[in-house]
């Protein structure tokens, strides 16, 4: 494979105008607002865009709505990790000459949509899982977390999930755009109601309305733009099942493959990472992913996150925007990990800025722990 490390950069990123509870905007409005804001952040215009990427909707819909006629189009839709994977696809397309300015957009109104997305009854998940009530990710991920409890112990797993919920909320209190900014105590966590045992309410991400966009371009073009380029040093993607019942190992996400591959491509190691942005659809997602990525061994996650190590002031900052748990999560969240990673690397994060943040690892997870996309990003 060609060495594409540092061949492209992220040059613009933004959320849509308002995120959280936004009852009167459609998902496509969030796409367009975010695209507008991200292009402005990059110092580019819509006319510069020749590659278009999204998930959930087809790019037919986003291109039509925004009035874009792309030369390269990609609607790869593998859940919330899709937008991380789009960065790698943009890198490939730009290097192959299919496009030069790639615009990745997302918009979703998980909280306020006026009509739901209908599921497809022809899919095996609809035939074999839905009839039993395997509907919605809290239920699916709860079964995976319970298997983890069985293998590694209930008390230490519970403590780890609490550590992650509390530390993520601490970061959210420092982010003006976060939906949940009130302090959360360990008691608040333990006393929150059951959604699907072993998950409390405070193990679960928010359901919000939000959009975001990311602009990727060639290294050469990036150097002439408004802000310092955020280099894509490494990227990897993959998946190993659809529904939770065909997941080969409920305690091992595909990050076990994409993490090491992205780090190897980037030529960096775990100890080089200044900031980890880890998709936190649930507290358990963060726990299992830290292990999968190799930051610690299997079953060692509870020790790794102990003592609020991932919180503000801790020596291993994770999810500094407040995560899907406390900042925003409209249904698919992956692109918001990139928004925060870019802002941290540029030093734009104010009260929550991680000092000397030079290298980031971002991991998106999609579906029922089905897919992962990992990128390693850096600033000069």
């Amino acid at each position, binding site marked *: 494979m060609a060495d594409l490390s540092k061949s492209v950069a992220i040059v613009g990123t933004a959320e849509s105008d308002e995120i959280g509870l936004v009852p009167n905007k459609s998902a496509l409005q969030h796409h367009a607002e975010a695209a507008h804001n991200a292009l402005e952040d990059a110092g580019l215009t819509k006319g510069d865009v020749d590659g278009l990427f999204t998930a959930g909707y087809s790019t037919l819909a986003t291109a039509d709505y925004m009035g874009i006629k792309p030369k390269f189009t990609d609607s790869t839709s593998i859940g919330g990790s899709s937008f991380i994977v789009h960065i790698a696809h943009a890198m490939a397309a730009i290097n192959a000459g299919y496009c030069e300015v790639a615009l990745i957009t997302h918009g979703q109104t998980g909280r306020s949509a006026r009509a739901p997305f209908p599921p497809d*009854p022809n899919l095996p998940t609809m035939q*074999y899982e839905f*009839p039993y*009530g*395997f509907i919605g990710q809290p*239920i699916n991920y709860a*079964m995976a977390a319970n298997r983890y409890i069985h293998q590694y112990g209930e008390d230490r797993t519970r403590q780890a999930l609490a550590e992650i919920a509390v530390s993520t909320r601490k970061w959210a209190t420092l982010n003006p755009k976060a939906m949940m900014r009130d302090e959360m105590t360990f008691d608040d966590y333990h006393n929150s109601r059951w959604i699907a045992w072993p998950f409390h309410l405070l193990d679960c991400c928010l359901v919000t309305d939000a959009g975001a966009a990311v602009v990727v371009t060639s290294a050469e073009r990036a150097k002439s733009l408004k802000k310092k380029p955020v280099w894509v040093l490494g990227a990897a993607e993959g998946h190993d099942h659809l529904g939770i*019942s065909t997941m080969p190992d409920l305690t091992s996400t595909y990050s076990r493959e994409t993490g090491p591959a992205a780090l190897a491509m980037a030529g960096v190691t775990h100890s080089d990472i200044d900031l980890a942005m880890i998709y936190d659809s649930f507290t358990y997602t963060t726990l299992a992913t830290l292990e999968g990525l190799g930051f610690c061994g299997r079953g060692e996650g509870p020790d790794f996150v102990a003592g609020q190590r991932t919180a503000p002031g801790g020596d291993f900052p994770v999810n500094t925007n407040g995560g899907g748990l406390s900042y925003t999560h409209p249904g698919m969240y992956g692109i918001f990990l990139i928004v925060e990673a870019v802002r941290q690397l540029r030093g734009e994060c104010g009260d929550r800025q991680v000092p000397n943040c030079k290298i980031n690892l971002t991991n998106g997870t999609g579906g029922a722990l089905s897919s992962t996309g990992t990128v390693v990003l850096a600033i000069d």
Partner: protein
Amino acid sequence: MTEQAYSKPIPVPQGESDYYWEKAKAHELWLRKCDDCNQAYFYPRDICPMCFSRNTSWIQASGKGTLHTFAIVHRAPTLAFRDDAPFVVAMVDLEEGPRMPTNLIDVEPDPANITIGMPVEVVFEDITDEITLPKFKPEEV
């Protein structure tokens, strides 16, 4: 229970799974098995997902297995499940090898009463005139 009264999702059999659902209606659990790599698998597919052989057949499962994992659903995912909550979603490792999604029934929905690894056995719930769902309960000793 009549079709009209049942508001939870009802499986839509596909051509390759008609046999599975016909057998479930007869209160039998059947699995696909690959005659080349010699492994049974779930869910039913004509082509083996392990070795991609077309040389596959059907076998009747014993209906016995062990609990691989479970969760206790307190917040119903849709209105149709509201009267069921709390209920137990589960995966069972069948004696023949495959893992299948199901509900664990005839058990108090309390983690103190349910143990991963516990032996379970199939029971059949006729949800409409056409469709029967295989579910599982703790094995009687």
